[in-house]
Each structure stands twice: as structure tokens, then as C-alpha cells.
């Protein structure tokens, strides 16, 4: 039982980590929290669900579709809501926050109108396949989720440290002005970052559908808040922090549900937000906020 829960926790945690990475990427380059990230995640889940249940598409196509749609959403978000606010003098940092809040409720309402309320089933053809390794039962679904997550996380880390575009992203994240002076097309980097972050949200959405076998247009908000909790816990802008934090949250939630108080499951993330912000606002991996951040 313990090992099953461990695997559940790790699976859940890795999905959380992907969502958190989406936040971290955007915060890293733009210094803003994209409050619409949770809703984009939710859309990814629904696109995946539609492709699978309406068109009986294989999982890969579902993922592909979710990636396409959420990437497009990210693109629109950046161009329409975020870019006009950049480089304007006297714009309060709260303005982008408020703007993305606006986008989030718009999207949530859109989902409500497009997809209707209530849980929609997310069937996976291989959902029942399990393997037994020693004392442990593990589902194929979980293996797939873990595989995709790890691929994504490793891919992202490598890309950030090795690839030219990845390094350009880190440069932009560090100092926008300098990066642009160095000839980096910061506008393009920023747009790409938001697009990549959003598609990661989309992928996470499909994975959640696979893990729980249903999607719901209300799932954006709790996931969004948990993603926030994770990056706050791990340190905003820290890739390692997002991954570590995601795992920690996934495991804590799973064990809390397994050993008693399921109702308060969602509260863990929220309480974590408050506690971490009070004790160690820079999170586990972040640098001290005072000198650096102009937020």
C-alpha cells in the first residue's frame, strides 16, 4: 500500500512539477505571475479529452492537439494582454497580474460555455494495464505519465543550459535590457517562452486527464493555485525549485488523502503558500528577494 501511494505521489508530483515549470519560465523572463496558466492547463485537458472521446484519437494525437491549442493560447495571451503592458513607464507591476486574472476568468467562462459543467470522462484505452514489480503494483498510465514528465523536465533543463535559444532565454530572464543590447531578439524570446510554458500546461492537462480519468472546467483554479504554491515553495524562477516543489506537494497531498483528511487536501497548497511566504519568501532554491527583485 505504501509503495502504491508513493508511486501515486510521484506521478501526481511530476504533473504538478510540469505546471509549476510553466509558471517559473514566465516569471523568469517577465517577472510576472501568469494567473491564466491554470485555465490554459484546463483547456489542454479538455482538448485532449475531446480528441480521445470524440475522435478516438490515440494519446499521442491528444497530446499533440493539446500542445497546439495551448501554445496558440499562450501566443495570444502574450501578444494581446502582456506585450502592451511591457516597457510602459509608470505601469504598476500589479497591472499584468490583474490582466492575467482577467484572462483567467474569461477562459474559465469560455470553457463553461464550450464544454459545459460537471466532470467529463477521459478514457484511456490502456487504463487497466498494470504491472507488478515485487511488492508494487504500477499502472501503465503512471509509467507513461512519469516518462513524459521526466522527458519534459530533462529536456527543458538541457535546453536551458545547452541550446542557444535556451541560453538566450536565461540571458533575457536575467536582464532584459542587456540581453537586447547583446542582439537577442527579446520580444521573440518572451513570446516563445510564454508559448512553451503554456504548452507545458497543456501537456500537464492531458496527463491529469490520463491520471484521474476525468476533466472538469473548474480544475483550472485549484491547479493554478497549487502551481503558485509550488513555485513559491521552490523559489520563483528556479527550475529545480519547481521540480522539487512539485514532487513535495504531490507526495504530501497523496499521503494526506491516503491517511485521513481528504477534504483538506487542497488546503495544503494554500497554507503552504502563506507559510512559505512568511518564513522564507525566496523559497527553497531562490535567492534573497530584497536586492534583486524590483517587483
Amino acid at each position, binding site marked *: 500500500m505504501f509503495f502504491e501511494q508513493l508511486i501515486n505521489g510521484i506521478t501526481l508530483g511530476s504533473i504538478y512539477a510540469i505546471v509549476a515549470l510553466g509558471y517559473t519560465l514566465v516569471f523568469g523572463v517577465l517577472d510576472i505571475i501568469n494567473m491564466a496558466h491554470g485555465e490554459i492547463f484546463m483547456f489542454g485537458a479538455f482538448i485532449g479529452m475531446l480528441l480521445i472521446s470524440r475522435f478516438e484519437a490515440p494519446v499521442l494525437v491528444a497530446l499533440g492537439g493539446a500542445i497546439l491549442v495551448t501554445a496558440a493560447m499562450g501566443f495570444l495571451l502574450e501578444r494581446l494582454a502582456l506585450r502592451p503592458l511591457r516597457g510602459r513607464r509608470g505601469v504598476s*507591476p*500589479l497591472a499584468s497580474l*490583474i490582466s492575467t486574472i482577467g484572462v483567467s*476568468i474569461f477562459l474559465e467562462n469560455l470553457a463553461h460555455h464550450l464544454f459545459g459543467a460537471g466532470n467529463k470522462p477521459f478514457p484511456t484505452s490502456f487504463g487497466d494495464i498494470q504491472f507488478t514489480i515485487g511488492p508494487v503494483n504500477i499502472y501503465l498510465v503512471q509509467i507513461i505519465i512519469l516518462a513524459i514528465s521526466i522527458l519534459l523536465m530533462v529536456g527543458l533543463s538541457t535546453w536551458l543550459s545547452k541550446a542557444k535559444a535556451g541560453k538566450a532565454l536565461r540571458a533575457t530572464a536575467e536582464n532584459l535590457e542587456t540581453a537586447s543590447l547583446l542582439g537577442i531578439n527579446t520580444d521573440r524570446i518572451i513570446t516563445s517562452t510564454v508559448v512553451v510554458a503554456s504548452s507545458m500546461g497543456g501537456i500537464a492537462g492531458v496527463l491529469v486527464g490520463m491520471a484521474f480519468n476525468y476533466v472538469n472546467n473548474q480544475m483550472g483554479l485549484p491547479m493554478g493555485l497549487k502551481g*503558485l504554491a509550488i513555485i513559491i515553495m521552490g523559489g520563483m524562477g528556479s527550475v529545480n525549485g519547481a521540480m522539487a516543489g512539485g514532487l513535495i506537494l504531490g507526495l504530501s497531498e497523496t499521503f494526506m488523502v491516503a491517511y485521513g483528511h481528504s477534504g483538506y487536501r487542497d488546503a495544503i497548497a*494554500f497554507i503552504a*503558500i*502563506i507559510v512559505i*511566504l512568511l518564513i522564507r519568501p525566496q523559497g527553497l532554491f531562490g535567492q534573497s528577494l530584497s536586492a534583486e527583485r524590483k517587483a
Partner: protein
Amino acid sequence: MINPYYLQIASFILINILLGLSIYITLCTGQLSLGSAGFMSIGAYTSALLTVKLGLPIPLGLLAGGLLAAVMGLLIGLPTLRLTGVYLAIATLGFGEVVRVVFINWESLTSGAVGIAGIPHLGRTILARLQAAGFSPESWGLKNNEFISLTVFLILLFLTLLTLLFFSRLLNSRVGRAFQAIRMDEKAAEAMGIHTTYYKILTFVQGAALAGFAGALFAHVTGYISPADFTYHRAVEILVFAVFGGSEVLWGPVFGAGFLTLMPELLRGLSEYRYFIYGTILVVLMIFRPQGVIDRPLLNRLRGRRNEGKDAA
């Protein structure tokens, strides 16, 4: 003549004005709090439980609701002081959600998702008292329900006007100038001898108390509350009142709450798309008019003055 339906809408406008003001007052010192739904629910549940389970009179419930919300505001506000901007907004958002989850799960106290029904209604309670003393609305040419809605409306109007007077005076004083200075440049404000910590907590607690008080009123005007009344959506709605109406002047949230409560009633067909509209409003406003509809220059023009920028109200 006295239409209970219109009076009810007007009453909700007044409660929303109070809620809009609660977020406005914290914005006065540059703090964005997304926890208003949480404070509102604390006030509502406190008053509801005290009046339903302990039979306390409504005014006591209202006061207790506001007070408890204020205390929570202090408990949350003190440690979160060091947080600025985005971090504070998220922390308060987290707080609002924690409150909601706690209320849903603490079934022995709050009956969970089912909510609390049978909360003593402000108007009906007053009518009952008066009737017991021999008064009858017919003597004024009013039917019972007309009297009830009128009473509720008048009480809310009185309380709202009182609140507006309170803040108008506060903001147009040494304290108000300190608020503004903190909002514009906190460090420079400190250099003026302004105890920024004190004033920031002050507005935070005031906002919490006001939201709690409004929540308590809400409970006694609707007669039934449940955690679904105090979700993140509610916090966003309150945010839109202030941000749309005008986040820099006292009349901003008043206008915002009035306009945005009225519109869905007037444009019935649109009320389904309410959150589409709210979302779009927020995005468009931040780009084109981040200070909201009503700002100082507009206010001065409406008053026929030329760019004085004197009053904070």
C-alpha cells in the same frame, strides 16, 4: 410605488459598494488584497452562527462579524507586511481559499457545503418587532414585503453613507496623505517620518473589517449563506468593482459596484456572459486606462473645477 425588487437590487448595490471599498482602502497604501471573499465569509458566518445558534440580536452579530474579520486581518496582515505587490496578492488569495476550504470541511460548525439557512432577516426581524409593539405597515400604506425591502434598503443606505463619510474624512487628512505617500513611494514616505508599517496594517485591517461587515450584512439580507457565496470568483468580482470603477479615488469603487451590479439586471441577456465581460474589462482597462473609469481629473471636471487634484475623495 415601492418596488421590492428594485429595492433589493439597490440593497445589493450598497453591499457591493462596501465590498468594493474594502479592496479600495487597502489599495490606498499600494496593497492588493485578493482575500476579500475570505474576510467576507468570516463576517457572514460569524454573524449567521451567532444569531442562529446563540440567538444574539442582529446588530451584535454584525459587529462581531466585522470585528472577527478585523482580527483575522490583523493576524494575516502583520506577517505579510514584508510582502509586496504580487506576493501579497497571492498570499491573500491563498488565505481566501484556506478559509473557504475550512468552512466547507468544518461541518460541525458550518454545516459544510450545505450552508446555513434561516438566518434572521434584517427587514423581517424589524417588522416582527414593530408588529409586536402594535405597529402595522398598512398604516403607512405599505404592504409587508414593501416595508421589509424599504427598511433593509434604508438601513444599508445609512450604513453605506456613514462608511463613505468615514473614509472621505480619513482620506482627506494627514492620515490620507500618509496613505497616498506610501502608495506612491514607500521609501520616500518613510523618509517623511511616516510609520509605513502602521499605516499599511491599518488599511489592511480596515479593509478586512469592512469586508467582514459587508459579509455579515449579506447574511442578514439574503437569509442563507454557503461557501459557494465566497469563492475566488467573488474576490475577483470585488476586484473588478474597484479596478473598473476607479482604484485611485473613493468614488471609483462606488461607481464600479453600482454600474456592474446594475448592468446584469438591465441587460438580462448578457448576465450569462458576465465573466467574459469582467475578464475583458480587466485586460482592456490595464492597457488603456489602468486607473479605472473615475479618476481625479474626471472627478474634478465633473465638479467644474480645473485640474486641482486636491481631494482624495
